[in-house]
């Protein structure tokens, strides 16, 4: 099996890796690049725990091949905080206790950050539809939605 050589940008750092053509971007991130923030909940596009952005577009990294990342710019949950300083979304998730086991949290943070960049003033319904592909088995979603709405309102005040 010939390996594919890929050059890409991950959280603004240039990376190079060799991967099997069948390997998903999620496998590459976790097993080759040591970025274990993105989680594998289902591997079939249903749960969103593996969410990352590729050239700014939210996708499931379990449904993209590592080989397809050539030349792309990928952002994962590891790039959300600024050094020791948490992103406002991360602070609000803690404040609102919007996580329990935490498996869904990296995907939801990446997804909601993408939403707020596209739409800084979403309605609750818009947030819920946007997150329809991010499953959480613990929280019942309510605290997540509140944390996102609260962050959005703070970010609007700050800007």
């Amino acid at each position, binding site marked *: 099996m010939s390996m594919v050589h890929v050059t890409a940008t991950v959280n603004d750092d240039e990376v190079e890796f060799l991967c099997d053509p069948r390997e998903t971007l999620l496998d590459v991130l976790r097993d080759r690049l040591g970025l274990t923030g993105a989680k594998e909940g289902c591997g079939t596009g249903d749960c969103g725990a593996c969410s990352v952005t590729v050239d700014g577009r939210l996708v499931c990294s379990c449904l993209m091949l590592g080989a397809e990342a050539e030349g792309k710019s990928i952002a994962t949950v590891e790039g959300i905080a600024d050094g020791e300083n948490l992103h406002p979304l991360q602070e609000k998730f803690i404040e609102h206790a919007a996580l329990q086991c935490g498996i869904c949290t990296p995907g939801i943070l990446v997804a909601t950050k993408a939403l707020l960049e596209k739409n800084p003033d979403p309605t609750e319904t818009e947030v819920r539809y*946007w997150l329809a592909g991010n499953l959480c088995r613990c929280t019942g979603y309510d605290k997540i939605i509140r944390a996102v709405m609260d962050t959005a309102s703070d970010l609007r005040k700050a800007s």
Partner: protein
Amino acid sequence: MQYHTPGSFEDAIAIASFAEGVTRFLAGGTDVLVQLRADIVTPDNLIDVKHIDGVTKIEREDSGWRIGIAVSGAEMSEHPDLHNEWPGIVEAMDLVGSTQIQGRATLTGNLCNGSPAADSVPAMIAAGVSVSVAGPNGTRKVAVEDIPVAPGRTSLEKGELISAVHIPARGSDGADAYLRFIPRTEMDIAVVGCGVNLRRDGKTITEARVSLGAVAPTALLVEEAAEAIIGTALDDAALETLAAAASAACNPIDDKRGTIKFRKHVAGVLARRTAKIAYERAGASI
């Protein structure tokens, strides 16, 4: 598995023509990767079509539209004009999966995966959409309804792939709509899907196409349903005949998401509702 990234349709055709074993094209991968990972289909050759010139564009063509084969659902929804002219097609594609799936899924992949429940397919059939099929013997134009031949199977021959999707000119006093029934509000597979496209003159419907998904091995173009509303002002009697024609056209299966009886009934209900939306969008009132 060999992964190919041809830069032109000629190269893609050449690779596909000489490939041995199972070949798949990779557009958004939201079907291909699920099947790969579940060991349902592991292609020997995977041909990524996203490096071919021009495949990511939505362009004007003969007052209609040419949609590149790598355009995602999200890009269709974000386009400033496409939704105004063809809301049914755009909304049908937008129903496919979540935000994450929308970032990758394509119209062509939805069509070529061959699911009887594929949401964009009845909308495209109703709208009269055709596709260019490129292959070793040149390019031909094929109506969307002639692409799927059975669940998971298409009429494409070895070496052929779709090179573009063509949406006709909207023209005046016309509109389309698509509705599906699912037991939830998001993230589910259609139990029934219905696309309607029509044109009116005053209150009278002069042209119509009605298509149903998930009620037969392939999406159906239901001519009896269209005839039921052409020449009418979509009055109650016309809606009644439309619903009966839609129900009668169904040849569904019983499964966990719906019984035969239920699917037939829902097909009639959805046909009425979809036709009303298209009629109102076309500027008529009931």
